[in-house]
């Protein structure tokens, strides 16, 4: 019996290794060229029934070996049982759990329930991004840390930072990333307008587009009725009869928050650590092959 289990285990593992390796070497476009590779394409394979079937087969082989005397020693049975639990929980986590992203600009409010597959009254919670803070490594544009100060349900403030998630019921929020664009305040006569680069806007009869801000020259490139001008910031300029002033560009941040449904799979960490302990015992103290 042991030989059978080992042989089946070897076959399944070799097939898995091959499939996983090929999937990483393909790009989704390859499946368009060679349709038979579609099943192994990285955008399909990992969530596919084939991948799940391979892992379930591995779990089945291990369970049969554990319970039908295919494995000597309690420690080995324990090790493989822990592995089965870990694989099954990961399959469950990947197939069942909800996971999505929320992008919120500063001072913007979103409703949490609008993102859920199954909206419910319990999660009819407005979330407002009060302030997005970012610190850069000195002398660089690389972020050292960034945080989102959130107002949850119009009453509770909370700080969301990288590696410091927040819980809302059975959902956990992670500070995933951020986006940055620039806005510019344009003032002409009594009109004040907030605009962004490459977004046309109208002032009276003029059509204006702010093209770019040249960091070297410190000037804007502005298009007024298709004519281009170099315009200094914070100064009133006369452009084809239009008197206008542009303030220096200001960054506006959008916080990108990843939301994950937590369904108790955080026991995976405990199972993982238990697995390591048993493995260390088997490999360290027991000198024989793990079969």
């Amino acid at each position, binding site marked *: 019996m042991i030989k059978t289990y*080992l042989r089946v285990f*070897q076959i399944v593992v070799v097939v898995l290794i091959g499939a996983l390796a090929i999937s990483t070497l393909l790009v989704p476009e390859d499946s368009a060229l060679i349709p038979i590779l579609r099943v192994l394409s990285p955008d399909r394979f990992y969530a596919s029934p084939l991948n799940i079937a391979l892992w379930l087969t591995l779990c089945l082989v291990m369970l049969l070996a554990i319970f039908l005397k295919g494995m000597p020693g309690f420690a080995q049975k324990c090790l493989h049982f822990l592995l089965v639990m870990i694989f099954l929980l990961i399959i469950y986590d990947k197939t069942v759990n909800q996971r999505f992203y929320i992008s919120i600009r500063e001072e913007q409010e979103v409703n949490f329930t609008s993102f859920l597959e199954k909206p419910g009254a319990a999660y009819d919670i407005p979330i407002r991004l009060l302030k997005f803070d970012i610190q850069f490594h000195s002398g660089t544009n690389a972020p050292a840390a960034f945080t989102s100060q959130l107002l949850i349900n119009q009453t509770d403030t909370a700080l969301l930072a*990288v590696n410091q998630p927040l819980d809302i019921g059975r959902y956990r929020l992670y500070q995933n990333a951020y986006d940055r664009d620039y806005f510019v305040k344009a003032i002409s006569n009594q009109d004040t307008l907030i605009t962004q680069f490459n977004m046309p806007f109208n002032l009276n009869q003029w059509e204006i587009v702010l093209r770019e801000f040249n960091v070297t020259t410190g000037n804007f490139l502005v298009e007024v009725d298709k004519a281009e001008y170099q315009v200094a910031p914070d100064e009133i300029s006369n452009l084809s009869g239009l008197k206008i002033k542009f303030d220096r560009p200001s960054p506006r941040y959008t916080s990108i928050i990843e939301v994950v449904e937590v369904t108790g799979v955080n026991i995976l960490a405990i199972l993982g650590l238990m697995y390591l302990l048993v493995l260390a015992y088997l490999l*360290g103290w027991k000198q024989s092959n793990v079969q």
Partner: protein
Amino acid sequence: MEQALLLLTLIIYLAAFVSLITRVRDRICHGLIWLAILSHLSALAFRSIVAGHPPFTNLYETILLLSFLLALRLVLWRRQIERRYSWIILLTIMGLIGAALGMPSSYKTIRPLMPALNSIWMYLHVPAYFFGYMALVLAFIYALIFLLRGKNESSSETLNLIRRLDNEVRIAFLFLNIGLVTGAIWAYHSWGNYWAWDVKEVWALINILTLALYFHLLKPKGIKKVFIVILTFLTVVFTYLGVSFLLRGIHSYL
């Protein structure tokens, strides 16, 4: 300063290598290796102080870390490594340091740490992997020696070699698993996702699955074990270098 220290380290390792192959007394040889380790550690410490983080965030730093771990293994666990194989390990260490020194300066540039890397788990996850890689390098060396010998598998020398191979593989397997599990826990803390099918994660899993075959052989003969070790070593090299250069994912740290 760091480059000067590394050059000094390389020179001292070379001196140790020469003393080893010319059969100079053990004490002198080990003294030289210890001196080299001290110099090596100084270079790593200098790098860490200047960078503001430990030296395992890019290819250059991890090559230096790997060579350092190999050197430590050579002196701290001397009894597990026969003197007649020590020259190969020294040669490997020198090769790694030479490769690091010869890298373009863009690879050596200190880059600021991403916010997600600012975690206690980095101090467990990365060193665990490199401890595993260190053991796998030694296993690979024993595997090559086995192949080059081509002697009777039942001879006492070959059995001794296989026993040492078993030892290294057990260490490698344990630490590769520690690296994988700590990485998964770290990913859960940072991104709420134990497993994201990132290319590096997939190849790390391939490494473990391949090495797991070592422990699940029907007839665990030396040649089969050697084949699995060589295959695992190749997958680890691909994981370490190939994934970063050829494939892209969140683990592309060059």
